[in-house]
């Protein structure tokens, strides 16, 4: 039981990156906003408004600083009357930061100016395409990606994004064309194979869809999201067993495309949350050292940020630096004493170290502050058993199944506790209740049979 819980809790513990922390004083939002000078009229897109720096008061200071710096660069470029390509770059850089900070109107204007000034630079129509995708404007996104492709015909990310945009616009033939073009450049590009699979499936050719999607999964088994459309394709063909098998394997992994522009975009913002997100991505891909770097960088921007602190502690634990992880979790609790995720994570570590009483205290604190925190309750119930307080564990199992009756482990563990205490009648009643939700669960069925047998033998309750 200990190993099962430890594995389960360990696997879960580093995922708990939820937090709360304290306040900072609010910023004065009446910082003067320098207007950007209008660029020479014959070089910008005359159909859009000039770009002026928006109200940055809602941004965190490091991010606001980034925006101001880019606007300053643009201002200087205009003042110095630099060549159009350079001015376009300045507009484009402004567009990217405005897109990232969610100022859509000036972002779009900036990209369109950039596009008009740097007519041979594929970056700006590509970012414009991403911008329109983000707003659900597929037709405009397609046009923008098409422009980018004209400038860089063999760019794989552009081909894939354009294909996906065509697909989402029901332009399946166009989608097939560009995905095929991508495959000609990179025959093992799972994203293109997946796109082709979706395109032909949309046109009713399930047989070919299966071929493409199976190939994509062979190349990139981590692209577990493809199991679903593959299942639907098999279902169309009447191959229900295969469909079910793929449904069971479905996940969230997407086929990958190396996209330097969007990688640059994703790494742009100097905000605590941006580093948190990058760290989470790194954790998900197993790069715990990289994750720790991101979390530390985030903490430099926002010290005492409990989410980042908790994330860092989790990364350290995954790196095997348990003592450092414990110190970091405890630091988080100094910042935020009711941080239930940190309390839970500490409980997990303490339990793994055999410090069961201390683990009880931590788990207990977590459920005190968050009564329906199921994982913490399970941890608490388990540790109470370890310290010999079997009876005390039962209310926690009851609470768990009340909140989430799907928790088979809670039903099973509580049944075992009741039997260990010799409370067989209660164990039977408990297992009967368990079977209303888990009628055929083998362990529950077996436990019920055992306790029924015990009761038939007339075992005396101590």
């Amino acid at each position, binding site marked *: 039981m200990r190993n099962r819980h430890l594995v389960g809790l360990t696997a879960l513990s580093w*995922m*708990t*990156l*939820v*937090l*709360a922390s*304290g*306040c*900072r004083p*609010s910023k004065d939002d009446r910082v003067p906003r320098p207007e950007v000078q209008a660029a020479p009229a014959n070089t910008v897109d005359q159909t859009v408004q000039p770009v002026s720096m928006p109200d940055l008061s*809602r*941004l965190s200071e490091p*991010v606001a600083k980034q925006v101001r710096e880019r606007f300053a660069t643009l201002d200087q470029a205009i003042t110095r009357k630099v060549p159009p390509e350079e001015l376009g770059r300045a507009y484009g850089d402004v567009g990217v930061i405005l*897109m*990232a900070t*969610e*100022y*859509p109107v000036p*972002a779009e204007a900036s990209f369109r100016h950039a596009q008009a000034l740097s007519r041979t630079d594929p970056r700006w129509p590509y970012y414009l395409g991403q*911008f329109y995708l*983000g*707003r*659900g*404007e*597929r037709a405009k996104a397609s046009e923008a990606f098409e422009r980018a492709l004209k400038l860089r015909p063999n760019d794989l990310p552009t081909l894939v994004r354009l294909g996906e945009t065509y697909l*989402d616009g*029901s332009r399946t033939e166009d989608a097939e064309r560009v995905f095929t073009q991508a495959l000609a450049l990179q025959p093992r590009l799972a994203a293109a194979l997946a796109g082709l699979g*979706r395109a032909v499936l*949309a046109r009713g050719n399930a047989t070919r869809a299966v071929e493409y999607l199976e190939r994509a999964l062979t190349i990139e088994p981590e692209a577990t*999201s493809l*199991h*679903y*459309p593959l299942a*639907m394709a098999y*279902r169309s063909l009447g191959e229900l067993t295969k469909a*079910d098998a793929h449904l069971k394997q*479905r996940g*969230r992994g997407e086929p990958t495309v190396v996209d330097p522009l969007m990688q640059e975009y*994703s790494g742009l913002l100097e*905000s605590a*949350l941006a580093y*948190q*997100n990058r*760290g*989470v991505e790194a954790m*998900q891909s197993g790069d715990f050292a990289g994750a720790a770097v991101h979390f530390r960088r*985030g903490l430099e921007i*926002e010290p005492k*940020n*409990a*989410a*980042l602190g908790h994330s860092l502690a989790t990364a350290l634990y995954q790196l095997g630096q348990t003592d450092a992880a414990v110190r970091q979790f405890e630091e988080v609790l100094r910042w935020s004493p009711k941080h239930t995720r940190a309390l839970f994570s500490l409980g997990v570590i303490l339990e793994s170290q055999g410090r069961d009483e201390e683990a009880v205290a931590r788990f207990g604190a977590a459920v005190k*502050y*968050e009564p329906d925190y199921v994982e913490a309750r399970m941890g608490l119930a388990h540790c109470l058993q370890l310290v010999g307080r079997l009876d005390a564990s039962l209310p926690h199992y009851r609470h768990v199944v009340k*909140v*989430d*009756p*799907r928790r088979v482990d809670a039903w099973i563990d509580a049944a075992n506790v009741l039997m260990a205490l010799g409370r067989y009648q209660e164990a039977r009643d408990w297992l009967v209740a368990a079977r*209303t*939700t888990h009628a055929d669960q083998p362990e529950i069925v077996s436990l019920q049979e055992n306790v029924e047998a015990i009761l038939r033998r007339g075992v005396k309750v101590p």
Partner: protein
Amino acid sequence: MRHPSDGREPLGSSSRTLFAAPWLLALFAGCGAGGGQPAQQAATAHPTPAPEGASEWFVDRAEATGLSFVHVNGMTGRFYQPEISGSGVALLDYDNGGDLDVFLVQGGTLEAGHGQPRAARADAGGRLYRNDLEVRPDGTRILRFTDVTKTSGIVARGYGQGVATGDIDNDGWIDLYLTGFGRNQMFRNNGDGTFSDVSVRTGTDSPKTWGVSAAFVDVDRDGWLDLFVGNYLTYTLETHTRCFMESGQEDYCAPGRYTPQRSRFYRNRGHGQFVDATAAAGMDREFGPALGVSTADFNGDGWIDIFVANDQKENQLWMNRGNGTFENRALGAGVALDGAGVAKADMGVDAGDFDNDGDEDLITTVLTREGSTLYVNDGTGRFEDASLASGIGIASRPHTGWGVAWMDFDNDGWLDLLTVNGLVKQDLDARSAANPFPYQQRNQLLRNMGTGRFEDVTERAGKVFTLKAVGRGAAFGDIDNDGDTDVVIVNSGGPARLLVNGIGGRNHWLGLRLVGTEAGRDMLGARVAVTRADGRTVWRRARADGSYASANDPRVLVGLGTSADAPRVRVIWPSGRIEEWANVAVDRYTTLEEGSGRRTEGSGRR
């Protein structure tokens, strides 16, 4: 990959983790920008002029008719989760006056540390409006509403979310079930204009839950309406967590930040006495953050099934086994996820036969960028995602949709779609001192072209469709009994709207009220086949559920296009009995009673 202006919530929601931990979320705290000053959201903002020559298919008559309700969402900058999800509205004939009255669900102000959420003012809470429709001899209709809440006995406590309607004790008077954050309430109609709170007595009060959509339906064919309640999240104000965008702006959390709360199924044992049968029905095993509920016989086996739309988790399709238990077949049926395998943020839902092939299809409304999902039924309870092929997916992508219904707005015989929209993530470009919580969007009307495709006709639908608001619940029904479908909309933090239909009257129609003889109530779930003189058959269903957190007109309204020929009507009652009526009068409402063969004709338009 993340996108700017992502319809999804701030990054760090559960969708990104490989380990499916719902609480895996990257958050950090700064200081909230909002102080403690209550700030009412702008009611409606930023009207854009309608295109020149636009005809008024729909006109907002709320204020003119006395339906002067303003929803309070309590937004103050603390971003408490329930503030973003309410509320709903019901159309019901509570006084059996022959016209639809309106109940509007109210929110309130949430205050941590006070256990139960409470309304901001003592006289707040849901409001009941009696419809005093007057039809003059010349056919002119005067629509008037009177707020009768005070005398009705309905005291809605707490922070309201949704409403369901149904006659729980078969006394011929429709009752009300209110869902909310913290508790639900059942109000029994006393038949004299008043209601009694029977929440505890009926066993349906469900304390410490967060209920949103609910549906009354007789799943076991015993003649009594059972109740399904969709619960959303396990959330308290005390465990509220702050969520931010990467740029630093605070906003509401994605649902994945919290664990889903299991939904409940209550079986009516008779006379309005319910028992929690969630576990016994097999519905304990799977649940998600439920926002939308729609009931229909999806596989044509004669037993009513239940579809549950979940927010960023797999949906459930509870197929009725006919023995009191259900099995979730959503995944195999193709409705758990969209065609690409994505668990969208399903919020509103409706079932209807949009392609007139005799089975119930499904539409769900979702976040901006996702596109509403159209699931087309093959008749056996298996569905294909036709969102893109139909044009619905693309047209709806710029919107975050909530209340929705299959409604034949022009009575041409094809079910159209009206969606009520409003963001869950701030439109930061629209933020101002006058509009500190900018979640407004326009509503949308999609016309069914009869070819499997839909046309966006929003720009032609009337000035009211140019207005932006934070749309949430919507109830659909013929509020002025003129044979076309009207809509009542709840806007979060804003005034309710009454969209009176002015175009449906250009075509012929058939109105049916389907009642049970013993039950004396609307037979929710009854299916109707209307066969016209040319042999074409249209299938419809008596239902009050669907949309978002709302309850619809239970009558059946069928558009007949230009045909004035009296059709043949076949009814499949929830009991399984089938009856037919020939030459049912058009352009009027007719009451069909189960088993009696009697036909009662009401007043008509022509």
